[in-house]
């Protein structure tokens, strides 16, 4: 090997070394990075009706999308300063670990394993879901326990796959999973007749039935709910400031519903309000924002731009949407549900 070639090789090695070495440096604080960038990187699904779905113009809408918009309104003052990054279920955790996204709002179930070992923290539950089954009516199945030897279409890389195995093992019923990588492929195979049942979160089942089935009435959702699926946003571990902002924006939106503050009346309430609790939330009497590193109007702006929790629910998955899901567990604690936000004070 000639000396000039050796020198070139040495240079190459040095370059590679320095490229790898810089990776060891820690990322700056998330909030500083967001402010400098001027937008939030929000990791969403590649398309789940009601939660995050782009329209033909590329505008995202959905439950998770609105949450990110609310956070952007609170932190940056503009609900549109969000860059949505579609992630499949395999990419999602790597994307948050590596810093590609600031917050993962991607109908992701909060579990111990994910919370404790993946370098991320769930900030709370924004949607209580559960896993169920969709079957064609003509099979005359009324319970999941009757699915003996049936083939069940399921998407890979979800908690659903594991729940499916757990549930049927506990019931001592043998089934055969047909596992697809994509959400699309999994329900397409089901509707083509490849599987006798389809399983995912019940919110997803309703969406798939109403949007994708040729005739939605030909399919029924079985009564069994086989798992708890608390969905919520997650952030990278170790940045408490950012964690608190994501967590408290969600709480503020729930609290706004409790006080009856909506997108339409928030200005009027802010102007005329006498209730000190509302004054604290909207920043008209007390400045709660400074404790979070935000200004005093943070919650006001979030509510003004995306509405309270109930409005977000109704618009994306509730009566005003195609999914028409009932509030169920996702109602306020004083209205029969289990949504209970700690007080903003």
């Amino acid at each position: 090997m000639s000396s000039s070639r050796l020198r070139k090789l040495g240079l190459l090695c040095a370059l590679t070394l320095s490229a790898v070495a810089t990776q060891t440096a820690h990322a700056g604080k998330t909030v500083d990075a967001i402010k400098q960038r001027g937008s939030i990187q929000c990791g969403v699904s590649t398309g789940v009706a009601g939660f995050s779905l782009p329209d033909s113009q590329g505008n995202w809408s959905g439950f998770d999308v609105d949450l990110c918009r609310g956070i952007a309104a609170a932190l940056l003052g503009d609900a549109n300063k969000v860059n949505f990054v579609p992630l499949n279920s395999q990419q999602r955790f790597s994307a948050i670990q590596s810093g590609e996204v600031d917050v993962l709002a991607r109908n992701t179930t909060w579990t111990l394993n994910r919370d404790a070992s993946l370098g991320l923290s769930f900030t709370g539950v924004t949607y209580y879901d559960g896993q169920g089954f969709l079957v064609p009516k003509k099979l005359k199945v009324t319970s999941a326990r009757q699915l003996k030897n049936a083939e069940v279409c399921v998407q890979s890389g979800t908690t659903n796959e594991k729940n499916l195995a757990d549930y049927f093992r506990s019931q001592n019923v043998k089934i055969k999973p047909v596992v697809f990588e994509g959400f699309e492929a999994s329900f397409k195979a089901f509707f083509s007749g490849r599987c006798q049942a389809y399983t995912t979160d019940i919110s997803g089942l309703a969406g798939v039935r109403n949007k994708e089935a040729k005739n939605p009435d030909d399919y029924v959702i079985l009564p069994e709910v086989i798992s708890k699926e608390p969905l919520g946003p997650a952030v990278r571990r170790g940045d408490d400031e950012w964690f608190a902002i994501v967590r408290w924006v969600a709480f503020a939106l729930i609290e706004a519903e409790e006080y009856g503050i909506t997108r339409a009346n928030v200005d009027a309430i802010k102007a005329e309000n006498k209730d000190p609790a509302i004054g604290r939330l909207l920043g008209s009497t007390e400045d709660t924002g400074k404790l979070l590193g935000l200004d005093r109007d943070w919650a006001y702006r979030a509510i003004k731009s995306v509405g309270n929790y109930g409005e977000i629910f109704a618009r994306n998955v509730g009566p005003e949407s195609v999914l028409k899901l009932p509030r169920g567990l996702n109602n306020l604690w004083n209205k029969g549900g289990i949504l209970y936000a700690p007080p903003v004070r």
Partner: protein
Amino acid sequence: MRQTLFRWLPQIALVILLALLLGWMGHNVLENMRGRGIHAGFDFLRDPAGFEIGEGLLDYDASQPLWRAFLTGTLNTLRVGLPAIVAATLLGALIGLGRLAEHPVPRKLCGALVETLRNIPLLLQLLMCYFALTSLLPEASEAIAPLPGFLLSKGGLFLPALDCTQTCMLDLPAAEGFGISGGWSLSPEFLAVLIALSLYSAVFIAEIVRGGIQSVSRGQIDAARALGLRPLQVLRVVIAPLALRAIVPPLGNQYLNLIKNSSLAVAVGYPELVSVANTSLNQTGRAFECIVIVMAVYLSLSLLTALLMNRYNTRVALRGTR
């Protein structure tokens, strides 16, 4: 002696440097992951997998450790890869010979087949195959029987199997409950992958076979004929040995491609290695480790294939020129 040392010294230094570099990068990755609160290491392979795998050669269920799931996936890759290699070789040889036929009908037909199949991405062919199988075929309860004892439906192809648990008897598939039970079943996912992989690789192999045969010089064939050999004899004793030398090395490449292409099976839900690894990755969150395992398995399979093909190549190669 000194000269040899000087020749080897830079090489050895380079290897050491590369090893150090790789080690340092690996160390950095682990260190960074630990710093961000991400668990690292391969200990998770001993945990119970927790998910079922639809089909496989092993007796596997969700309570078994993850490494068994990876093994099941690897075997599923081979289960579709090896028959596809055999089918692609046979089909490829046939199509290749067809392209050299003197009669224009088989020649043009094989030519059209080659040009169509090799110019459409494999993933699309795979999806087409799968949708054809699952959309056009009837439900399991109305399965069609192409041959007595064979049942074909959306649930796949069911063949009669020999059941020798007590006394040997033929186990015939029959409709039962939601599906078909008994017999030997091949899922539509498996069939789609097998068909698509075989056809796609076959047309490339056909071109290699054609090129190999055409590389045999005209003079050799004329000489063989002049000696009075019959056409089949010419093919067997003159063309084949000479053509094989040109065919075998690129054929090995096609086999390697075929095995790696089988990873596309994940798109139609066939539980091969990548599919199992993706699921494990999601259940455990160990992205780095799962991808390392997949790479290691593919590398081993490919190296093994390359080794076998090289062995075969030295057997057919021209002696004395190396």
